[in-house]
């Protein structure tokens, strides 16, 4: 695909997202959410477009994106795994779990595995604290996670991709 095609696809996606949300009160966060959902991240090229249409400065839009942990300005892997780092999960061994998962995936927080499959992120509570430690794999939350369980989850997650290869 050429860069021109890429940027015209981006423009089309953005324009329809903005059109859909522009009537809302306080539309910026819903637009950023929809953009990240559609593209996996918020490309820097999106900033001036959103800014112009919402009559904000580029700095304002950029400032909002950078304030929130959830928004990312760079592409992520095919899957996102979040490990809960908060107190309840700490009480059930999440510090060790986090170290083991990092080692298993050979990656650190805010980074993606070499095969592009998994981006690892920290999270502070998933509301699953009665069954700590918890992790989130895309939109699925898992409780009482052990390394055995993690291997299982990873297997299920990556099986489809591997079969296609």
């Amino acid at each position: 695909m050429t860069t021109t095609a890429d940027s015209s696809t981006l423009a089309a996606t953005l324009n329809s997202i903005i059109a859909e949300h522009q009537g809302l009160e306080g539309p910026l966060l819903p637009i950023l959410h929809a953009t990240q959902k559609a593209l996996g991240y918020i490309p820097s090229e999106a900033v001036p477009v959103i800014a112009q249409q919402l009559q904000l400065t580029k700095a304002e839009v950029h400032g909002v994106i950078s304030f929130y942990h959830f928004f990312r300005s760079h592409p992520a892997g095919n899957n996102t795994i979040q490990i809960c780092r908060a107190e309840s999960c700490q009480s059930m061994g999440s510090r060790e779990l986090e170290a083991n998962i990092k080692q298993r995936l050979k990656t650190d927080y805010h980074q993606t595995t070499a095969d592009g499959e998994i981006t690892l992120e920290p999270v502070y509570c998933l509301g699953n604290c009665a069954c700590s430690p918890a992790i989130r794999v895309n939109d699925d939350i898992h409780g009482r996670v052990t390394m055995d369980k993690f291997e299982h989850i990873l297997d299920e997650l990556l099986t489809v991709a591997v079969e296609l290869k």
Partner: protein
Amino acid sequence: MSTNTATVYIPRDTTALSLGADKVAAQLQNQQPNINIVRNGSRGLFWLEPMIEVATPKGRVAYGPVQPEDVESLLASDFLQGGSSHPLYLGLTEQIPYLAQQQRVTFARVGVTDPVSLNDYRAHGGLVGLEKALALQAQAIVDEVKTSGLRGRGGAAFPTGIKWQTVLDAPSDKKYIVCNADEGDSGTFADRMLMEGDPYCLIEGMIIAGLAVGADQGYIYLREEYPVAHAILNEAIACAEQANILGDNILGSGKRFNLQVRLGAGAYICGEETSLLESLEGKRGMVRAKPPLPAIVGLFGQPTIVNNVISLASVPDILAKGGEHYQEFGTGRSRGTLPFQLAGNIKQGGLVELAFGASLKTLLQDFGGGTRSGKPMRAVQIGGPLGAYLPEELWDTPLDYEAFMAIGAGVGHGGIVAFDDSVNLSQQARFSMEFCTIESCGKCTPCRIGSTRGVEVIDRITNDEQRSGSLEEREKQIELLEELCDTMVHGSLCAMGGMTPIPVTSALKHFPQDFLPNAAGNKAAQGADHA
């Protein structure tokens, strides 16, 4: 009832799902296609999840924790008749002591009904409060909430009726009802459970709030970390619009209230009400100075009620049964019930709704059953990441706002996190400071910079390699930490910086031995940073 049309309840609550409830449901449907499966909320007995129930003429019978591989043996047993032969049989749900000993008021329907069924909602007492409110003057609704003695369940415990009065009295054509569903505190899940298990209760509470103060637009500010709650709320809002409960003609009254869910984006500080309003407006979540109060200058500059999920969800029952009835629960100035959440290293984790006044020990031992690891319980943190760490000597304290304030702690949102004796409290204190550096909105220096210094000072206290090892030097660093905490308490605009010292100083006060360089875990902790 013939067995193949039996009704089986399998929760769609996040925790139940996190332990495999969807797979159990799929397996059951697959093996017995005629079974009528209802996806309810959770009863909150989380150590038994996935807990599934069969409807019988005597009442619902529970089985759990059920794994997909148990389905075959369940179906081979007398499970569909509610029989007792299977090892996972738990008896009549309502007679399980953990549940039978609670006072379920706000959570009366959670786990019982299909969360998105309006028929279920009506059949279990839903909309009675709204119907009453529609027949009342705005002031009379506010008066009912004042009578109930309800105080905000989000943490600050401000009287809800007084907040509503301020918004009612603020002259404006446009007012807002904002539900704080950011539930960022570790150890808490009551808001999530309610939104996933009884979303109409929150919706009804918000409509009543709108009628009480003359607001016709509501927003639920929901944390992004709750995808299941998001889906269920949106489903429920669409059904409520269809049924003219939301919209331009509430139950045929000609009155109007519209409601939308808005997602946060992973910022703990956006649970603070003014930061939340900034975020809803599409800005960085920078905390606003108060005054003006959000009740007077709130969302888009308009008078706004900001209330926690549980505060708002308490309102339908208060209107239905009267504020007088609600305030009969509780003790002193803490009226009504609080859904306590047992979390962390606890055997029987879950939601326990009780009138204020029960002791912490009752919760930890009678309900919680001690630690999950089986080791002695050593500390509990109450009220989230800004809450105190308490040693066993203080577990007799009755759970009410004033009694907790008296011991330098807070009940907060009712989250209780237990730790066994492998915990190192200097590491916990260090994490509190670290969390503050990650989540500070950055407006105040004591919060932003002080917390970074806090991490460094704790490292110096617990690490003997960096210093010459003199006792004197250590004492100096501890003094420095205490001064730093003092500066944060007095120089911070909001409770993020202002209360981070609470877990830190409580850890230092009650567990000083953990701050010694040779305490277990202190060496290993060095350099094991978060990023």
